[in-house]
């Protein structure tokens, strides 16, 4: 039914599709581990995708596009920070506001600048991240199984894919092996413990939010200049929320986050690859059902069917002395 080549192709596309989720999920991980719930991952990704697409089109450089994307995302992160850390506002409301803001602004500015119904013009050449062929890939492609896996699955992705994978162990190392990580986890669990040690809770939380902004920026840039070729209206399509579900599924841990995001990417890839599955006696599975798979899994995870996930204890609450 499914041959090896098809399987490899599905896995290959799972990897591509999981990258924006992974980057956004790690972004959320930094933020939420520091006690700032971030429902605005979606909006930041969208703003970054637009900024990256627009800047890459104007300058013809994917790298400048990426930096613009990160910048846009950090700006929104800062808005979230000012609202929820400095002014101790409600983190959910601030996040929702960011999502609306990003959705509206990207469409409005896109239409105003490019007059293409909110899209940016298609990108090509150096305005996109191009696929990197790893050393020896061409040579090994004819070696059965391993050569093929190397050529099809491991080689041939854009730079951002490899960066995203490297960020997973890096995140783990930062969280669990460095002073920064210790304090970051502590402000998410009991900010009073950090405060009474004479460390600024506010500064620590802003640092976390900054990292969150950078990672969301990478995720957005990947969407419009890596996997895609230009920005399209609402192109994040709920990926920020799926990333949040993956974060909960992974219990706020970096390595499980990788697996969770790959699972979501895999479901998406299946939805795209197998659009007309016949099941004997039942009939054809509708295309819509296949495409809804990642969202269905999201609902299942959030409904708590996959075991109890305990979020960082101080998450969602602004820190008040006494």
């Amino acid at each position, binding site marked *: 039914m499914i041959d090896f080549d098809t399987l490899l192709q599905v896995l290959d596309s799972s990897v591509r599709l999981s990258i924006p989720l992974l980057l956004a999920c790690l972004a959320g991980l930094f933020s939420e581990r520091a006690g700032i719930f971030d429902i605005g991952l979606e909006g930041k990704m969208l703003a970054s995708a637009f900024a990256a697409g627009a800047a890459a089109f104007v300058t013809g450089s994917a790298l400048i596009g990426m930096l613009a994307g990160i910048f846009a995302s950090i700006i929104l992160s800062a808005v979230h920070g000012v609202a929820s850390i400095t002014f101790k506002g409600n983190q959910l409301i601030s996040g929702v506001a960011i999502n609306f803001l990003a959705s509206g602004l990207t469409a409005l500015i896109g239409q105003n600048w490019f007059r293409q119904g909110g899209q940016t013009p298609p990108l090509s050449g150096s305005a996109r991240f191009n696929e990197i062929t790893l050393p020896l890939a061409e040579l090994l492609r004819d070696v059965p199984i391993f050569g093929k896996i190397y050529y099809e699955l491991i080689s041939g992705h854009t730079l951002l894919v490899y960066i995203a994978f490297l960020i997973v162990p890096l995140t783990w190392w930062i969280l669990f092996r460095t002073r920064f990580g*210790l304090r970051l986890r*502590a402000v998410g669990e*009991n900010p009073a*413990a950090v405060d*009474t*040690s*004479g460390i600024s809770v506010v500064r620590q939380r802003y640092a976390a939010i900054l990292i969150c902004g950078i990672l969301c920026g990478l995720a957005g840039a990947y969407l419009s200049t890596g996997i895609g070729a230009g920005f399209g209206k609402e192109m994040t399509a709920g990926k920020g929320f799926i990333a949040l579900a993956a974060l909960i599924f992974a219990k706020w841990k970096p390595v499980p986050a990788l697996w969770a995001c790959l699972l979501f990417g895999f479901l998406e890839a299946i939805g795209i690859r197998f659009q007309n599955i016949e099941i004997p006696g039942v009939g054809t599975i509708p295309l819509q059902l296949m495409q809804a798979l990642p969202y269905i899994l999201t609902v299942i995870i959030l409904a708590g069917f996959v075991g109890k996930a305990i979020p960082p*204890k101080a998450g969602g609450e602004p820190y008040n*002395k*006494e």
Partner: protein
Amino acid sequence: MTKDKQERPETAAPAIQLKNISKSFGPVQANKNISLTVNSGTIHGIVGENGAGKSTLMSILYGFYKADSGDIYIRNAKTSIPDSQAAISAGIGMVFQHFKLVENFTVLENVILGAEDGALLKDSLSKARRQLQELSTEYELDVDPDAIIENLSVGLQQRVEILKALYRRANILILDEPTGVLTPAEADHLFRILKNLRDQGKTVILITHKLREIMDATDTVSVMRSGEMTATIKTNQTSPEKLAELMVGRKVLLNVSKSVAKAGDIALEVKDLKVTDEKGVLRVKGITFNVREGEILGIAGVAGNGQSELLEALGGFRKSQGLVSVYGHSLDLESPSGQEIRDQSIAHVPEDRQRLGLIMDFTAWENIGFGYQHEPEYSNSWGLMNNRKMRKDASNKMEKFDVRPSNIKLKVRNFSGGNQQKLVLAREIERNPDILLIGQPTRGVDIGAIEFIHNEIIKMRDEGKAIILVSVELDEILSLTDRVSVMFDGNLVGDRITRETNARELGLLMGGETD
């Protein structure tokens, strides 16, 4: 990092001198011109009622608040303490009443948090492990460095807090109400540690409302009353009665005078009651007891041994299994309701009055009516609530219970702890119930109000009511109750006639040494 603090403190130089410290929060002056001298190498107690300004003063010393005026001298050097970092550098360590520990971190991680030696944790962790080893042998502060905080008993968690301060080279250790959560044995151990620290030249400031601890553990004691420092005395030259008078500003009866109980029929009977908490843990493991009319049954025990769950089950907040009958009528334990409890003439003054007994952002008159709002006396002829009657009733009850301020429209949040408790009592007792369940009646309540509350409870008993009193304060159990049972790990482990037992015996039972 702290500077090298190895030089011996000069015996002559006081550890801390506060000169004319004042601090206001809006219109409230929490500290008025406070001057205090704490000598090096002593245990210095600070007593005062809630709201007397003790916590504010210590928060100023630890850099949490900045004083409006006044100076702080640490060993004769004028020191400014703008934040906690400065306090730590000045050699001040603080053990808060509510521990400031990260519960899912290990002991070691908590100890180094904020005092790490570099960007990577490895070296700090191994250094802390060595130092903890030394400190634990030096001061009887044993604790497993790799244990996760949430798996430790509160007594051990407190040791971690002390270790944290010592690791930061604190010379002055401030402890805020440290024994509230400890068993008597743990408290004794704590005081041994503190004396040990003092003998090594450290200075200890002990904030407490328990006069017995002041008498047992301190060298000098300072009394605060409504923001002022009213006296500083050598402990061996004073007495609990004298201190209570200084705290309240008038003579206080520390011991309740009561006659011998005249117990009547069984009012409430509990058989093989089991209560499971939200996490599925069995917290009350099948207990049996009864209470008669005209007597007070005390349930003693260290917090967290199932007393809260017991009270909540009896009060109709929580499902349970077994049998609870009131004058022969069995309660529905499967789907409990507070309404049924009230219909059986049971009044409940919950332990956590702010969470279960009151709605903090509602007014006093609303809170006094809650649970009884459907009663005919609060209704008009249309069957709707009659607010005017409720306010009138609230006003009467507040006057009778001397709730201050007597403003029925004030939000409950704005009353002091003692007055909040009086509001709950006014609501529950004035209904003239047959049975009263009361948990921690005087937690967070001023000495003056404690006297009032205790007298009300005794009065109810003498009117022939059956009372169950759950308290972690042994003194309260001993002075109020007629019979006492100790709860340990979900079981009742000892039944005693109160006047035939003593604090020592109950303390051992509370620590799990069953007979």
